[in-house]
């Protein structure tokens, strides 16, 4: 089921996102460019649980599972 979406530029470290494949990641790094393209970002989880990378257009939306500061 699709969750809430936020602007890619509003993603913060610690936010939990869901990729189109269904894989979820907790963002531990935000790469300012993807493939050298200034119009693209890449969100990375580099943790003991997984290494996973999800690019997104800078002006696009991404699916948010949980905010970093959420207590849910």
């Amino acid at each position, binding site marked *: 089921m699709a969750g809430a979406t936020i602007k890619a530029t509003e993603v913060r470290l610690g936010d939990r996102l869901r*990729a189109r*494949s*269904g*894989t979820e990641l907790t963002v531990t790094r935000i790469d300012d460019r993807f*493939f050298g393209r200034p119009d693209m970002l890449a969100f990375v989880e*580099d943790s003991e649980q997984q*290494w*996973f*990378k*999800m690019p997104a257009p800078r002006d696009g939306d991404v699916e948010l599972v949980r905010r970093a500061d959420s207590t849910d």
Partner: protein
Amino acid sequence: MIAEALTGIDGQRLDPAVLDGKAVLVVNVASKCGLTPQYEALERLQKRYADAGFTVLGVPCNQFAGQEPGTPEEIQQFCSATYGVSFPMTEKLEVNGRHQHPLYQRLTATPDADGDAGEVEWNFEKFLISPAGEVIARFRPQVEPEDDRVTRAIDSALP
């Protein structure tokens, strides 16, 4: 040398004879990526150079946007039916991160043409290993398999 630590996509240990003494182009692959059509050119490279002591080695990886989600059987079927892939494939591996496969620990220490080493950037990054087992070139995903830079490197690496 390379094959010792690798398991094939069929779940069996990769036969060392498939790689040893050859120039090997190691490529992390994915079935649902915009770059997936690179399989066609990779297979052409395989056919062009196989008799000269070269092979492509495909490494399925699901770490990039989850674009390689299938089972080994599904990946094999896709590669065979869609692109007629004849080069060897490994099991699904992690190419980045804390559980990075030892092969990729070696590969990612190698810089690209701009001098940048480190993480694999995306699907279809290419590393060329000499017949002696030395990592001699790295090509980022946007570099097509039949780009002159790749074929020149292969030509000079052949045994």
